[in-house]
């Protein structure tokens, strides 16, 4: 095996999303303010910063105002202030306007492309001398002799399917750091290893998730209402399944439309992708898109556990920020502001630790302490009981939410619990198949023509990055008992059961993978482990 080279930094940040970049920016700001020497490197697995970023997105600029108060002068791509909030309950035929819940008021917020926001944030980081390396995936955590994290290694490039070294093989590279910040986003593949290694989830509720599927449309100018924000609940979900839609009108004739479904759904026949397609056919929805053109597609899991699922955040040599830790505010369906704030707070704690000349690995214990005193904690604590209440179904949950938010103002003396998402699916025999309408090619589409618009690609010859612990399980358990649910929960057509010589087998089309991580979350026996493919593989989302 080839010897790996190494490079040394003070801080390595894994992931160039909002929280990772905010961490890096804040670190360099502090270093420059205090004249300290501090090298910061950000690794991003996407081909460029923003390539893998997918979000609604309505952004609350609170953290940005603190990080870069002059963001307007710096040309931040926050162009469309929210002008109107609508919250609608859908039945199959009707749309019933509801009072917008307090968490979903968006005065002062902006509709943005989070990908473009990150591209801009990446430029701000580079201007502060952060080394940003896109197209390199952190594939392995490096530990020192004492067991502390001492950095990460990027993945090898040019391995062949069987794992052997191809003609252009380049061995990965070790990045050593006094502190490694994991900002991988929801269900980070390295973060998952850290949870186990350092028992970071002991004593907290399991993390739960949702899958968000998003399309970007260019609509007819007459139908475009810049700043309009619409959320729906109800149809096409049944009353027991957690899910809802968003439609955001922004910039020039663009509308972001998406559907988020809790991954605690029970029916293995449910297909989040097809629910999203079906949602667009609702009489109150379809007109917006008629005559328009779908220009982008993507999907991403989000953390929905909230306050009670936040793990221990620090360990020797590193810490976790952003949605990798689960800082998303579910009732607000926003996590950019909390994610950024967690990164900025972590940066301050790291900077303090680095200034105090300790020998050996540092653990930035100041980070959780500072965070608990910040508005992030307060905000997440208040909302902690909303999502779990949805175990009871939509209407009881909405009633509960009203009581919890409006009467108790988040100060209920109890905290509701979560069940891990992979345990909630029922055997197919106990469930009804769902008959989804066929795509019409204008408003609704099939999966492959959708993935086409995500500009997804992976180097063809590399080993499959969707690894199975036991390769008999897909057929023997998932197909037999759960009707092959992975064919449906995957929004990119990665998993297919095909018949070869009279026998069913699972075909994994890893090239289609949009890195949403749903399979890693929802597989009933946790048989699928998502690992990073070669750097720069995956989607190339434009304006998402």
């Amino acid at each position, binding site marked *: 095996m080839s010897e790996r080279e190494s490079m040394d930094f003070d801080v390595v940040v894994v992931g160039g999303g909002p929280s990772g970049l905010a961490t890096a920016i804040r670190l360099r700001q502090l270093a420059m303010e205090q004249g300290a020497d501090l090298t910061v490197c950000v690794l991003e697995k996407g081909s460029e910063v923003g390539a893998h970023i997918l979000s609604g997105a309505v952004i609350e600029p609170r953290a940005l105002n603190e990080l870069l108060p002059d963001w307007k002068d710096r040309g931040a791509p926050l162009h469309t202030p929210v002008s109107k909030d609508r919250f609608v309950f859908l039945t199959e035929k009707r749309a019933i306007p509801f009072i917008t819940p307090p968490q979903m008021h968006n005065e002062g917020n902006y509709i943005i492309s989070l990908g473009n926001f990150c591209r801009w944030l990446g430029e701000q980081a580079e201007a502060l001398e952060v080394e940003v390396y896109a197209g390199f995936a952190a594939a392995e955590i490096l530990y020192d002799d004492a067991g502390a994290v001492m950095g990460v290694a990027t993945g090898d490039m040019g391995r062949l399917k069987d794992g052997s070294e191809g003609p252009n093989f380049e061995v990965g590279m070790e990045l050593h750091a006094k502190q490694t910040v994991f900002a991988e986003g929801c269900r980070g593949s390295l973060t998952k290893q850290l949870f186990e290694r350092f028992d970071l989830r002991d004593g907290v509720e399991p993390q739960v998730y949702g899958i968000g599927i998003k399309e970007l449309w260019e609509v007819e100018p007459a139908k475009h209402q810049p700043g309009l924000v619409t959320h729906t609940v109800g149809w096409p979900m049944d009353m027991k399944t957690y899910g809802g839609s968003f439609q955001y009108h922004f910039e020039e004739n663009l509308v972001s439309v998406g559907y988020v479904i809790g991954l605690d759904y029970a029916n293995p026949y449910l297909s989040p992708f097809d629910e999203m397609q079906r949602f667009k056919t609702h009489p109150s929805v379809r007109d917006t898109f008629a005559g328009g053109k779908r220009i982008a597609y993507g999907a991403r899991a989000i953390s929905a556990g909230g306050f009670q699922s936040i793990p221990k955040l620090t360990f020797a040599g590193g810490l976790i920020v952003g949605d990798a830790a689960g800082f998303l505010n579910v009732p607000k369906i926003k996590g950019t502001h909390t994610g950024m704030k967690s990164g900025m707070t972590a940066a301050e704690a790291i900077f303090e630790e680095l200034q105090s000349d300790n020998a050996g690995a540092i653990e930035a214990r100041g980070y959780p302490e500072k965070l608990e005193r910040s508005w992030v904690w307060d905000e997440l604590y208040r909302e902690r009981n909303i999502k779990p209440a949805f175990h009871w179904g939509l209407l009881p949950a909405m009633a509960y939410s009203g009581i919890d938010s409006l009467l108790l103002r988040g100060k209920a003396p109890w905290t509701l619990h979560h069940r891990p998402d992979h345990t909630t699916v029922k055997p197919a025999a106990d469930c009804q198949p769902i008959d989804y309408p066929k795509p019409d090619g204008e408003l609704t589409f099939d999966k*492959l*023509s959708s993935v*086409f618009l995500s500009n997804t690609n992976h180097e*063809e010859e590399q080993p499959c990055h969707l690894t199975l612990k036991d390769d008999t399980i897909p057929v023997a358990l998932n197909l037999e008992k759960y009707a092959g649910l992975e064919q449906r929960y995957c929004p990119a057509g990665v998993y297919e059961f*095909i018949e*070869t*010589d009279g026998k069913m087998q699972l075909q994994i*089309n890893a*090239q289609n993978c949009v890195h949403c991580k749903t399979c890693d979350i929802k597989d009933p026996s946790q048989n699928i482990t998502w690992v990073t493919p070669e750097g720069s593989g995956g989607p190339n989302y434009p304006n998402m």
Partner: protein
Amino acid sequence: MAVLVLAEHDNDSLNPATLTAVAAASQLSDTVEILVAGSNCSGAAEAAAAVAGVAKVLVADASHYGNALAENVAPLVVKLSDAYSHVLAASTTDGKNVMPRVAALMDVAQISDIVAVESESVFKRPIYAGNIIATVESLDPKKVVTVRTTAFDPVAAEGGSATVENIEGDADSGLSQYVGQDLTKSDRPELAAADIIVSGGRGVGSAENFAIIEELADKLGAAVGASRAAVDAGYVPNDYQVGQTGKVVAPGLYIAIGISGAIQHLAGMKDSKVIVAINKDEEAPIFGVADYGLVGDLFKEVPNMIAALDK
């Protein structure tokens, strides 16, 4: 003014691609003339004179024109260009090699790979691998144009009676020499350059079954392609792959067998001139783009087709 078409030929005969360039030229002018620059090329010159609608054939016969070297042919075309409003060639590897050199020497832009003539200065051409069609207007006094061969119906090879005029060229530039060529006649043609492609998809079912795809291809002198599904299933190696992440092809005939026709595959072959689909699923999207669709079991229909081709 007359239009000049640079002939593509092997000295003995005319390459049919030239007929499509003549077709485009005749949309620009009533007077189309052909230049045959070659070595002992009277065969090609006679064939050019027989092309329907051609007024005159200019023949420059010298040993250094024998292999269409751009360094020699381009100055010859430039010298003749005064008398013409447009100079055209088929967008073959020879045309693509010579014509930009002609354009630069004339100090004009080249309009590459046109698929439609809108007026004598406005053309349509594919950009971004055919995903976008651009309409462009040439602002130059003279136009140098290459013609996408699948976009124009060739004029008849026979029926014309052009006058033939021998012309003098320049001396050998000495900048380059032809050494040899390796035209893969006996083997199957390269995917990217083939006139006919027979492609198999997952419906073929196994690597062994791919033999019938190859048999049909050999019968037609075609290249063999595959969809990504067939490649992913391990039936054929990756370099067979036609599609978004494989090769983008535009043959005269594309036969898709057991291929459902996902957009990723269509992206690689939708510019083919004629598409045939054989698939047992009559709902398969491939039928939405196929000029000729046959719903049926490929294991029955392909051997039948091989037999029918012998008739």
